């Protein structure tokens, strides 16, 4: 900024300098208020007081880099986005200042600058649209729908309704149930392997001959399909554990036939 030609009137220039420094400080103090580097650039660009189409990207780049530098000296922590933008702008600046290298591929400095100006203009336009939208005559603020509910109740039909949000949340709930509540899933219908193992350790001693795995299901777990299923799985896993430990033998005569176990006595 110091390189800028100084106005004829020195006091005015000084005044401007003070004002702009104050503005810069205000910006820095307000850094939390910015929604990202593009927002900051847009704010800085306002100081040029020109149409965004005519903005000096080089000047803007310098303003941004100065801002980042000041924030650093004030030890204000900036999000990574801001630093990435600073690096990109430094690169852009070098492209704009150096004579173009004909062998260089990719967009020229001018193209990059034009794109940045376009982005700023587009963001400003969207801001403007958002403001116009919010300033419209809105339902339940300026315009109102029918207040009375339907007074006639001749034929009553019940329809069921659900929104997309309900649907998606339901699905998300199912698919992420384990995330939400890893161990609270319907415990009353779940027999753990440890429980089955404890039970089976005690029972296996009494069973002399081959016995159907299903006969080890605890009382009250045979009828209810959910409980039966859980208990069967737990018992099967427990039986495998016992076999691994050399306590029992397991056999199954053919596919889908009952699985049987027997205590291993040969040791």
């Amino acid at each position: 900024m110091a390189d800028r030609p100084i106005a004829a009137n020195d006091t005015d220039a000084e005044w401007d300098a003070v004002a702009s420094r104050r503005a810069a400080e205000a910006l820095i103090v307000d850094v939390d208020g910015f929604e990202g580097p593009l927002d900051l650039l847009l704010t800085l660009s306002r100081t040029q007081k020109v149409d965004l189409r005519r903005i000096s990207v080089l000047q803007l780049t310098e303003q941004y880099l100065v801002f980042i530098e000041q924030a650093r000296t004030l030890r204000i922590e900036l999000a990574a986005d801001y630093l990435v933008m600073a690096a990109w702008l430094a690169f852009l600046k070098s492209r704009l200042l150096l004579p173009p290298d004909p062998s260089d591929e990719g967009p020229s400095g001018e193209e990059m600058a034009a794109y940045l100006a376009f982005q700023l203009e587009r963001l400003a336009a969207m801001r403007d649209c958002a403001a116009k939208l919010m300033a419209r005559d809105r339902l339940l603020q300026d315009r109102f729908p029918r207040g009375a509910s339907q007074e006639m109740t001749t034929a009553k039909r019940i329809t069921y309704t659900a929104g997309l949000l309900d649907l998606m949340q339901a699905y998300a709930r199912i698919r992420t149930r384990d995330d939400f509540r890893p161990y609270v899933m319907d415990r009353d219908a779940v027999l753990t392997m440890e429980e089955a193992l404890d039970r089976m350790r005690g029972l296996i001693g009494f069973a002399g001959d081959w016995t159907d795995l299903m006969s080890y299901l605890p009382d009250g777990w045979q009828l209810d399909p959910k409980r039966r299923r859980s208990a069967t799985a737990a018992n099967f896993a427990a039986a495998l554990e016992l076999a691994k430990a050399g306590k029992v033998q397991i056999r199954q005569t053919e596919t889908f036939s009952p699985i049987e176990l027997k205590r291993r006595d040969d040791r």
Partner: protein
Amino acid sequence: MTDAPDQPQPRGDTLFRAPPLAEQERMVEAMLFASAEPLTLAEMEARMPHGSDPAEAVQLLRRRYEGRGVQVTRVGDAWAIRTAADLGFLMARETVETRKLSRAAIETLAIIAYHQPVTRAEIEEIRGVSVSRGTVDQLIELEWVRFGRRRMTPGRPVTYVATQTFLDHFGLESARDLPGLKELREAGLLESRPPDGSEAEGLQRDDTGDMFEDDPEAALPGDDDFDDDFDDD
């Protein structure tokens, strides 16, 4: 958000001059339309600019609506706009009571939408609980779900698929447009509402209901699946 002025703005000379009667009639019309309850003249006057005479405005409005599809009618001390009695037949189908779909139904619907074509056993596998016949029947009756092709696996189970009516209701152009989990998360639809205690309780009760409603055979998640799981081990 711009705040609408919630008070009539005192504008210099008009402050103590009532608006023209035609304007008062418009005001009464808007108030009677938007109000959930019949309005008394005093209630109307309280809202209108100083010096207004709602009694006269209501009479004007009443005459204006004579013979129209709606009428300005007196309800006790108050006034309301009601549809003309002879057009009641148009409103008969209007009286539709909407109810929220049960949790079991919405979950089942979600699974069908995302996994179609899907069999009942697969739905149960995903939900972790059995699905009562009433739940699927309800979805079919709503025309959100229909039968698809039979699955060419033992038992040739029927599959369920989501319908065009489903897409229309949920504002989707195709089932492909259903967002995935990653996108749900990005849109903030996942973590925002973890199920609280009461909901979890509801789930449990619901499950128990399903369990007993179903015949135990159907509730068994196919022997095939079951054995397959273990064969893999």
